[in-house]
C-alpha cells in the first residue's frame, strides 16, 4: 500500500479564516502600471518641503500626464532631477520645494523632458 500525502483536511462547518486571507502586497499598492513604473533613488535636499528626503525610493510612472502641481522626475541637461511641475499660463516651471534651490524655467529650446510622475515614495526610518 502506498502512502498518500495529506493535502488538506476537510472540516464540516465554517472554513478557517486563514484560508481566505490574502497577503497585502506593497508592490501592488505602489505599482499601478507595470510597464511604465520605475524606481529611482532621491539624492539631495531640495524637495524636503514636499516630503521627499535624500535616500528615499521614488515610484515614478511614465504613463501619467504631468499636470501642474505634480512632482516629476525631469531630465535636465542629461540628468534626472526631482521638481514640482508648475504651469503658469504658457510658462512651465520646474520648481524646487526648498529655499536655496533654484527653480528652472523651461522654454521650448531648453534641453528638458519629463521622465515620469512621482506617484509615491518609500521613506526608511531605520
Amino acid at each position, binding site marked *: 500500500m502506498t502512502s498518500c500525502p495529506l493535502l488538506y483536511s476537510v472540516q464540516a462547518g465554517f472554513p478557517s479564516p486563514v484560508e481566505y486571507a490574502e497577503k497585502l502586497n506593497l508592490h501592488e499598492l505602489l505599482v499601478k*502600471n507595470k510597464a511604465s513604473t*520605475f524606481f529611482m*533613488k532621491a539624492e539631495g535636499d531640495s524637495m524636503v518641503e514636499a516630503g521627499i528626503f535624500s535616500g528615499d525610493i521614488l515610484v515614478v510612472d511614465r504613463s501619467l500626464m504631468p499636470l501642474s502641481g505634480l512632482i516629476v522626475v525631469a531630465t535636465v541637461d*542629461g*540628468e534626472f*532631477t526631482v521638481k514640482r511641475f508648475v504651469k503658469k499660463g504658457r510658462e512651465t516651471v520646474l520648481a524646487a520645494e526648498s529655499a536655496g534651490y533654484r527653480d528652472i524655467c523651461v522654454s521650448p529650446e531648453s534641453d528638458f*523632458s519629463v521622465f515620469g510622475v512621482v506617484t509615491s515614495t518609500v521613506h526608511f526610518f531605520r
Partner: protein
Amino acid sequence: MKKDSPVALIDCNNFFASCQRVFEPKLENHPVAVLSSNDGCIVARSNEVKKLGVPMGAPYFKVKSLLAENNAKVFSSNFALYSDMSRRVMEVVKLFSDEIEIYSIDEAFATLHNKKDLVKTAGQLRNTIKKWTGIPVSIGIGKTKTQAKAAALFAKSNGAGVYELSSDNLEVLESFSVNDVWGIGGGLSGRLERRGIKTAYQLAVSNPAVIRRIGGIGLLSTALELRGMKSRDGNRVLVKKQIRSSRSFGSPIKNFDDLAGSLAYHCSAIYSKMREQGSLAGRLTVFVKSGSYKDQSIFVEKKFPEPVGDIFVITKEVVSLLEKIYKPGANYIKAGVMVADFQPAIYFESDTLFGPTNYSKQLGLLSTIDKINLKFGSNTLRSARMGFQLVWESKKGMQSPSYTGNWAEIPKAFCR
C-alpha cells in the same frame, strides 16, 4: 495568428542601445554600442555608430579606436536590464492587440485591435511604447508575417516609424535586397542573385515557377507571402525543444583529456544545429556512462542566467561540468551533451572568429582545448591530472548598473 487578420511586427530600434539610453539621457544623440558577452563583438549600435560604418558583429578590438575617437559610449551587455525592458514593451503591445507572438527579445508579431485604421493604431502603439518605456520602435503592417517584417524594415530605414505594406505599394521593396527578406539567408540569396533576382521586389513579382525551381516550395512560400498571400506563415525551421549529441566509444576511455575531446566534438555538432534553428541555449547537460559492473550513467546540468550561443563558452562549460563528474580510473563507454531551453538568437558571436560556416571543420584542426587556450590565454584550461582550474572569466567591464533589477543600482534622481 488568426488566419485572415493583417499582422503587425513591432520591432524595437537598436534595442540594447536604446535600453541603455533610457537611463542615461545624456546619450540621446550620442553614439552608443553594446558588446556581446565577454565583450567580444558589437551586438547593438545606435544610428550614430551605424553611420561610422561599424558593422553588426564587428569584433570589438577592431573598432575600439574608431569608437573611442568618436566618443562613443560602449557597454557590456546587461541581459537583466534588456529582459526587463523587453517585458515592458511587450506588455504595452498586449494592450493594443488581440493576439501577440513574441518572436525575440525585441520583436513581436501582433494582430492589432481596430482593423479599420491600422496605421493609426500602430502609431498610437508606437507613441505609447515610447512614452511608457522610453524605447523607440518601428512597426510594420502586412497581410502576412513576411510582409510585416519587410514593412517594419522599411519603417525603420525611412524613419516613418510605421509602415503598411500592401499590393498597392510593393515597389518600396525595390530598396531591399533579397537577403533582407525574412527567411532568406546567404546561400539562397546568392542563387537568386545569379538568376537576376536581386531585390525583394523582384522576388515578390517573379514567376512562381522560376522561384520554385531556384529554392523549392520554401522559397516560393516566402515570395508569395511577400506578395501578401498567406501560405505557410510562421517559423521556417522546425525548432526542436532540445538538441543532443552522444556516442558510445569503441573502446573505453579513461583519460580526462580524451573524454573532454570527445565532448568537444559533441559541442560542435550541437552548435551547428543550434545555429540552423537560430537558437541560444539556456540549459546545458553533460552525461557520461562508465562501464563498471554497475553500468551507471551520470549527468550534470547547468542553467545559464543568460542564454548562450558561443561555441567556446559552451565547450568551456562542458569541460567544467565534466570536471565535476569525472572519476579518475573509471572506464567511460559513452558520453554526450544536450542543450535545451532555447531562445531565438539575435547574433552568433563565434561567426566573427571563423566566419559563418565551416567553423566545425576549422575546429577539427585543433583540439578544442588548444583553441580555448589560444583565445583566452594559455593554460586557461588544464587537465584534471594537473589540477583543473578555469582562469577565464566573463569579461563585463563596461556593464551598466542593473537599473531595474537591483535596489542598490536603481537610477538616481537629484534633488537640487
